[in-house]
């Protein structure tokens, strides 16, 4: 069986380009900023290649349907757990708290 990464899409058919530009949301800017800070010096928690690898490891369905920054935040979660900076349990608990806060508004 020929392995093909989900991100290895050069030459595959696809539709017309959307050339519109829109300002990124604060969420997107923050994901971008956090990624840079965690990856670059002085922290250097992981290499760009590890970020790419974690994105490539997403479920194909997730990869296909997700937004660009959605993939980044999922990769960031994965790497933070891998590097033992955060635990899966901590993240799940915090997510529950954030969701209930949001629902109350």
């Amino acid at each position, binding site marked *: 069986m020929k392995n093909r990464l989900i991100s290895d899409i050069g030459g595959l058919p696809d539709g017309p380009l*959307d050339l519109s530009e829109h300002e990124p949301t604060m969420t997107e800017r923050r994901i971008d*900023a956090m990624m840079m800070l965690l990856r670059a010096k002085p922290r250097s928690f992981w290499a760009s290649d590890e970020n*790419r690898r974690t*994105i490539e490891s997403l479920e194909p369905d997730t990869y296909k349907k997700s937004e660009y920054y959605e993939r980044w935040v999922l990769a960031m979660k994965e790497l933070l757990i891998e590097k033992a900076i955060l635990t899966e349990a901590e993240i799940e608990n915090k997510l529950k708290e954030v969701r209930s806060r949001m629902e109350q508004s």
Partner: protein
Amino acid sequence: MTGSNEPHGGHDHSHNDFQPDIKEPTENWEFLEIALRELLVDKGVLSAREIQDEIETWEKKSPEKGAEIVAKAWVDEKFKARLLEDANQTIREFGIEVEVLKMVALENTPELHHVVVCTLCSCYPRPILGVPPLWYKSKQYRSRVIREPRAVLQEFGTTLSDDTEIRVVDSTADCRYLVIPTRPVGTEKMTETELAKLITRDSMIGTAQARDPIGKRS
């Protein structure tokens, strides 16, 4: 920006110039951003201040520096030669320090037209051009331009003669590419500053040509 996120439309009352989308997070992945950020800040791994500073650093970056570099390459043959030979060293003169990655300048001519892509992800010469456009990161661009360059360039309104070789450059590794677009005819008397205004971000990616000077008839 405060350390915690206010759920009731907590607007950013900071002094920022830009006005980003005041969009309430509604998707799971947006909640995940909040969760991760709060945990990281609470644990002292990151600070809210740092995150904001980083956002502002990237806000300030634009393709302007790239356009200055290209304009200089257009007027100064020796500079262009140095840029083509060793872009990392040459762009240092513009205050851009690129350490790990290799910057490479590609010269477009009427015979050879380069277009840059990263089919595997979204590698882009950020230190020179700032943040990449959304279309550059899109699956449509990444899949198609390497196989359908003429059709894709058409979508940008760019048509090239069949006698011109289009070369699609896939950034698969440690290099980041800057295209030096072909200098338009009728610009011989223009200053570097005036020339820089003709050099668009898309022309430095290769999906468009540099702008023609105003009033020029083709």
